[in-house]
């Protein structure tokens, strides 16, 4: 196989990419669950190939305030990976992690403390590490990551960064969404893996496709 076009991806390739997302997100959720020392349930990841104009609707609206944590990938794979959570979910997660149990009103305007921001970066680090190490052992490719880069802004604006990378390959973006929850406090997030076209080929090739 020498050609890959995300607009005309075949079923086999789609399934493989979905399975990668599945395994990666599963590992990441386990890591998160260990980190906050509580059982986290995870739904079956949804994998969608979306047109750019549908992208921000899929994550709940272009103007929704989200936390995006982005890593650039190196080694055998070039590209980037992003973990995205809405602001309220990430505030919940930080509170669980830091043991802030007092019930405060959480809204989009809640500012993170320096400690909170640092905790978020660490969450991003651990989750992405788990995701990528499973991808790495699955494909036998060596994958290195940068330090986490974080931004808190409108979903559309944050998504523009991976969307632009997808834009270089085709007219669709591959999005893997995993929702996970801790009883009544919901924490959910999205993983977006964006290998370059060449790296897509490396991944598929490493799996014998």
């Amino acid at each position, binding site marked *: 196989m020498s050609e890959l076009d995300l607009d005309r991806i075949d079923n086999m390739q789609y399934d493989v990419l979905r399975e990668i997302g599945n395994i990666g997100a599963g590992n990441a959720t386990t890591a998160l669950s260990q980190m906050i020392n509580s059982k986290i349930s995870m739904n079956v990841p949804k994998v969608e190939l979306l047109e750019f104009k549908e992208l921000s609707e899929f994550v709940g609206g*272009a103007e929704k305030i989200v936390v995006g944590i982005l890593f650039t990938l190196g080694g055998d794979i070039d590209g980037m990976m992003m973990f995205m959570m809405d602001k309220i979910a990430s505030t919940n997660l930080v509170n669980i992690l830091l043991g802030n149990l007092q019930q405060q009103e959480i809204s989009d305007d809640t500012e993170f403390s320096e400690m909170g921001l640092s905790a978020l970066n660490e969450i991003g680090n651990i989750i992405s590490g788990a995701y990528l190490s499973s991808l790495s052992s699955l494909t036998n490719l060596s994958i290195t990551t940068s330090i986490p*880069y974080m931004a808190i802004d*409108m979903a559309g604006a944050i998504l*523009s960064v991976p*969307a632009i990378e997808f834009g270089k*390959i085709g007219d669709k973006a591959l999005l893997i969404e995993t929702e996970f929850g801790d009883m009544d406090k919901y924490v959910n997030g999205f993983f977006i893996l964006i290998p370059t076209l060449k790296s897509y080929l490396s991944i598929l090739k490493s799996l014998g496709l």
Partner: protein
Amino acid sequence: MNNSIKVGMADASVCKPPDVITTLGLGSCVGIVLYDPVRKIAGLVHIMLPDSTKINNNSNKYKFADTGIEALIQDMVSIGAITRNLVAKIAGGAQMFSFSNNLEMMRIGDRNVEATKDKLKRLGIRLLAEDTGSNYGRTIEFSPETGLLHIKSVGKELKIL
């Protein structure tokens, strides 16, 4: 009753009063508003990449600064705008993540803005105002009635250009 016409990523639309035209959550992309103040016709394209000639898969014209502006002008002319009347206002092109290394792919916002200005200049379209660069997202809304561009950002005052 005025409608708000929404434009998504790599998309474009045209608009006449009393409607307004908007695009939500611009990040590194650039929102380009073209406006014929005489005919009161506006068009908005939300471009993602600077240059269609550098990309193999370039069937969607609205994805790129160069072809997006050309295609938008055609769309506007087809509903009665006159090319030589057109003026422009642009917003977006932020760098959402503060990368320590200055890799080419990280400067995409700046490159989108540069390519947009370059194309406008070559087409002889005057750039009236811009709110570009920096590190935050923008929602923009343009009214062909007033010719004003409203820019909203998280935790910032409304800007009117």
